[in-house]
């Protein structure tokens, strides 16, 4: 067992968004996407802290883009999934799906 903990909720969601956005995922786009799809506005602090934590854990790889004027001459920090990140996401997802299987019907019944 090289890993004992699964992804946290926000970590999981963010990794999914990054996966979906391909090469164009950066802080603001991720946060906006989360807000639009999940319907929950995640605070800036939580978003960025989680992103940095995921980079530190080696699930995400960050690279700098080109500076642009509307960003006050600053570059975007783009994120992509690392192999480790893909693996973690896959495992977490699989674990959840396994747990889910058969439960949807139970929820319907109530």
């Amino acid at each position, binding site marked *: 067992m090289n890993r004992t903990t699964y992804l946290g909720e926000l970590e999981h969601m963010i990794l999914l968004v990054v996966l979906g956005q391909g090469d164009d995922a950066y802080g603001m786009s991720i946060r906006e996407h989360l807000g639009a799809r999940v319907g929950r506005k995640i605070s*800036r602090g939580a978003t960025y802290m989680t992103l940095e934590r995921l980079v530190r854990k080696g699930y995400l790889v960050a690279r700098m883009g080109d500076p642009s004027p509307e960003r*006050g001459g600053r570059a*975007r920090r783009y994120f992509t999934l690392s192999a480790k990140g893909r693996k973690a996401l896959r495992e977490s997802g699989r674990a959840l799906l396994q747990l889910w299987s058969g439960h949807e019907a139970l929820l319907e019944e109530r």
Partner: protein
Amino acid sequence: MRSVPRSPNGEFRLPRVARWLLCLSIRDAAAREGILGDLEEELHGLSAQGLKPFRLWARAVLASLALATRFATPNAGRPAAVQEPARRRNAGRPKVDDIKRDAKYAVRQLARSPGFTVAALLTLSLGIGGTTVAFSLVNGILLRPLPYPDPDRLVTLWERRATGQELTLSFPNFEDWREQSRSFARITAVRFPSEVTVLGGEEPMRGTMLAVSREFFEVIGVQPFLGRPISYEENRAGGEQVAVLGHSFWQDGFGGNPDLGSIDLTIEGAPFTVVGVMPPGFKLLEEGDLYLPLEQQPFRVRDSHNYTAVGRLAPGVSWEQAEEEMNRIAAGILEAYPGETRTVGVNLRPLRSDILGEVDRPLLLLLCAAGFLLLLACSNVASTLLARSTLRDREMAIRTAVGASRGSLIQQLFTESLMLAGIAGVLGLGLSHVSLALVRSLGPDLVPRLESVSIDARVLVFALLATLLTAVLFGLLPAIGVPSDAAGTLGSGRRGDTRRSKALGWNLLIGGEAALAVMLVVASGLMVRSLREILATDTNFRPAGVLTIAMNFSGSRYQSVEARVNQLSEIKREFGSLPGMTAVGFVNHLPMQSTSMTGPILATPLPDLDNIGLDQVPPSSGWRVVDEDYFAAMGIPLLRGRTFTTADGPDDPPVIVLNEAAANLIFPGQDPIGKQVQFLPFWTGVDLTVVGVVGEARDWRKAPGSQHEGFVLWRQRPGYTRYLTAVIRTEGDPVALIRPARERLQRLAPEVPGTFQTMSALVGESLKEKEFTMAVLSSFAVLSLVLAAVGIYGVVSYTVSRRSREIGIRLALGAASGAIRRHIFTRSLGVVAGGMMLGVAGALAAGGVLESLLYGVSPRDPVTLIVAPLVLLGTGALAIWIPVLRYTRVDPVVTMRAE
């Protein structure tokens, strides 16, 4: 990460606070870059959607605040299990917790004695604020280098006569100098500025023209902001007619048109090509609107001194070497051209001294005053902190007894002092920021380079260090004295502080503060009184209801004197038919316009001018060319004789009218009417008959009797009619006349630029300076009074409170509280009075320095010397009475039980 390129179109930018917060809290540079950029991008989008700037700002600040707190406390809101490793990391550094605890304790301590805290904060912030302002002024104006590269190598050069008289340069001498001298990398000559008419912009304009020799741009070392400098090829006979524009002239006149080639510049009717624009704010001695090549047709007369010379010393050449060489060259020239020049030597002066002129002295005085103020503030802080230190003897002893180390006590006190000084520093900084903004808005013309004055790091560090050092030194006192004998202090209980040695120290402090404050109040009081004296004297003209129109007839149509005179007569007739006007006159310079057109008026027969000592030449008088109605239009009173009339024809014997100051200067104690004078150098070789004396129409800033002027009639001296100002007096509102007057001028002389201003507005501009000077002086006096009062209050309230037990006993034993009050009050007031006398003596001793700055008030002015100390005594009495009353009103039983 700090220097961020600006958004190109000046749209929304992340507020500095926000950037600052995030830079402080987010350690990782890449993460910070990404987050800052995201925030900026988001707000940029919102700004494009039309969110109001204030909301954007608030949103940015709030967001960055939230982010910053999140990043600064990485584990907040996380489960304890996750926090554990972080805690372990911190375990090795207990200091953070200690500092937090000390800070908390310090806040409690400060809150516990609000009186002390407010007094200390007030003193410290006033001290820091006041000194920062004063030092900012001195720093910005005196200490900061001039805006040229290597400014200390720049010197001005002057020709010197055998009499010691100093003259500007003649062109042939300049050519010899630059050819022969090796001490200078380059020398440049600049012709006196002159006003010219410029076409090619939206309207005809007047501009200040500076003709410069070819080395100009190399000597100053400043390159044009746009385009290029004037080349050597252009700057010689037959060269192309080119011009470099001053930045504001380019902005105002040509709308900042960057395509210089498209500008059709015409100066005095001749076409010029614009090749460059100087950087904003550039000026050398004079601010030029146009820089033209001088050497296309220089004035080659060896005894005609029309040029200012500025040189840049060659590397490694000392001042003395340069001076010695230049004197040798001058001697050689004198030998080579006998009779053509009378220059025997060369004087060198640092460029800085010519730019700063006479401002040095008042500013240095201000610096002295600021120094005193700082001293006062420091002694105040010292006394308040000292007072507290003894109060805390017991606390320190207890803390030592229960195991506090000396180090931790010192750390605690240090934190307290630091916190006090820190808060005061912020307050003081805000204070100085506000007052500097005030200074800048009120006194733009008062001192050169005022626009460049701001709070810079040097000033800040200075004021902060001075006060901080005081605060920390005296704040640490309790820790130094006590712990050595904790048991002794504890055992002694609280007995009240009546030791003689300490009392002496307190008295010295109070007395010293009183002395310093009296000196400051006397000095500023004298200045204010002197200013009042100047202002109370009539300025001898009536600005209300007067419209002035500055006109320029230097265009090609008006080259001939006849054309100008005819045009002027016509304009005068036209203006004379304006509705409601009562008089129309002409003058070349208005009373408040300082001008370089001054020269000595000498009674005939003239002394031998070649061998006259410098001290025998009377001060220069202003050369005023007027018509016969000027005095009536300006409201200048006739004191003796007559003014000009239409009967004074162009070919009649020339006449002159003197103002009172000039008359008293040239003919002291005599009746000048009918006497003959000459006005050099404007009308040499012609005797003028004095026909009248008029009142001294005077700039309020000048001391009465110091603005000497001689008036001649324009018809008799028509050569000086290129620049004239029409003065129109009306019964109604002069503003209403602007439009019809402008229309008439446009119709008669469309290419003559006219500047329309009411006299009241012109005077109002200079009145701003009056307010400024008064405000600065008065605020110094008030500030020193407040500081002294706060200091005295602090010390007295401390000493009295220390004696409250003793007072309680006395009261209990039957002493009348009034008697005790009187006793304490008179003793303290006696000390203040003693210090006051000392201060008066000091002010008397320093009076000599002030004397030259005062008008109509002696530095030993009894009123000031009595009133200022009395005011201080009153303030001091109040500062003593309040604490005395407070501590003697208490029920004796309460005081005694308080132990």
